[in-house]
């Protein structure tokens, strides 16, 4: 066996990389979901100053390359604040922030999708703003948001590939390593691409299933 040949262990390597990608994808999505929702609630309450800041930050994150955000966190923060930031930490911070910005936008339009007349009716019944948000808006907004959210998740899964650039051992980084060692780019990148493709399809499928269940659920609640 020559040094450059594929070994059975390479499959383990690829799966490990996929595991890292998935772990970061899931964790940063959850963090982004929390932060993005909090931002949307801030906007719902029209908190002065904070609303403007949130809107501005979200716009900035949405309209700049993730790669640059990643460099800012990984190279910029340590140099400026004299702190230590590992590649994984930088990846978590950047991807969470980026997801939060997009989730914020989806959450805002989901909240706005609930008709004004419903809010007025709820107010007439004497519900507080929090009760309105919790009981009236949240269930409907969730059903509205799940479609766009699935699309976003498929996209964010692909965005995780960028963390390979700062040295995180994700699927793309494993691809880089195998590419350099075997010098068989077609096979390596096809395999890596196939793994991403299958995962994306899985995410889209799961999103579709979840949407169906949620829709059925809200329809039932409406009775």
């Amino acid at each position, binding site marked *: 066996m020559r040094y450059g040949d594929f070994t059975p262990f390479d499959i383990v390597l690829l799966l490990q990389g996929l595991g890292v990608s998935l772990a970061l994808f899931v964790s940063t999505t959850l963090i982004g979901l929390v932060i993005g929702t909090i931002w949307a609630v801030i906007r719902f309450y029209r908190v002065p100053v904070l609303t403007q800041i949130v809107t501005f930050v979200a716009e900035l994150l949405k309209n700049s390359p993730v790669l640059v955000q990643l460099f*800012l966190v990984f190279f910029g923060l340590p140099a400026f604040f004299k702190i230590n930031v590992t590649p994984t930490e930088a990846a978590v911070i950047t991807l969470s922030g980026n997801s939060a910005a997009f989730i914020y936008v989806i959450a805002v339009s989901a909240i706005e999708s609930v008709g004004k007349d419903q809010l007025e009716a709820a107010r007439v019944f004497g519900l507080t703003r929090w009760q309105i948000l919790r009981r009236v808006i949240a269930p409907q907004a969730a059903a509205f948001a799940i479609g766009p959210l699935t699309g976003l998740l498929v996209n964010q899964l*692909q965005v995780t590939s960028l963390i390979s650039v700062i040295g995180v051992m994700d699927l793309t980084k494993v691809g880089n390593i195998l590419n350099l060692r075997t010098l068989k780019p077609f096979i390596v*990148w096809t395999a890596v691409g196939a793994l991403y493709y299958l995962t994306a399809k899985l995410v889209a499928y799961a999103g579709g299933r979840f949407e169906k269940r949620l829709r059925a659920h809200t329809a039932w609640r409406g009775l």
Partner: protein
Amino acid sequence: MCRLKFDLSILAKHIPFLLEGAWLTLQACTLAVIGSLVLGLAVGAMRTSASPLLNRLAAVYVDIFRNIPFIVQLFFFYFGLPEIGIYIDAFTTGVVALSVAGGAFTSDVIRSGILAIDPGIIEAAQVSGLRKSTIFRKIILPIALRASVRPLGSVFINLILTSSILSTITLNELTGSAKIVASNTFRPFEVYFVLLVAYAALTYAVSIIIGMLHRYLNRNQSEGAV
């Protein structure tokens, strides 16, 4: 806390170098927009054609390139093409990769633009004896493109953001040059912060231009296509 000094003046002498990078980004993006449009139109037409084979082929292309990260596609082209004897420079590789990925998204926009056209309008063109190619050029395409200006704008803005990834194949476009400046000045925070704002400003400007283009092209359609 004297270390926390946000000093942009250091960047001043690097501005010409950064502008060179920005110029390269602009060139790559312009070419990729043209490439995406050509590819997107062809594939969009295929996806709305009557031929099941063309339809299927186009759908597979879109599905693959929409579901695989761009950086993987880029490495596939960058490392893979020389292996089959195609030697092109990083810039060309970048433009090709951007066009192929952008084409997938563009074709989706074009397709829904075409499907949104009132079938009666196309029937009117058919019975007046116009050839298929003429109907496509003179009726379908202008109507679909007018309706697609805004979504196409989003695709192109994404293309600009995605072009930063070309820095990973040794191309010193805007992000690539910024990397060099960051390591030369030891001020990565300032450099990348300015870069982030610069990209946001650039995409903001593009979105304004797109809004203007949309209004100009649809100035005679008060309620959209009738």
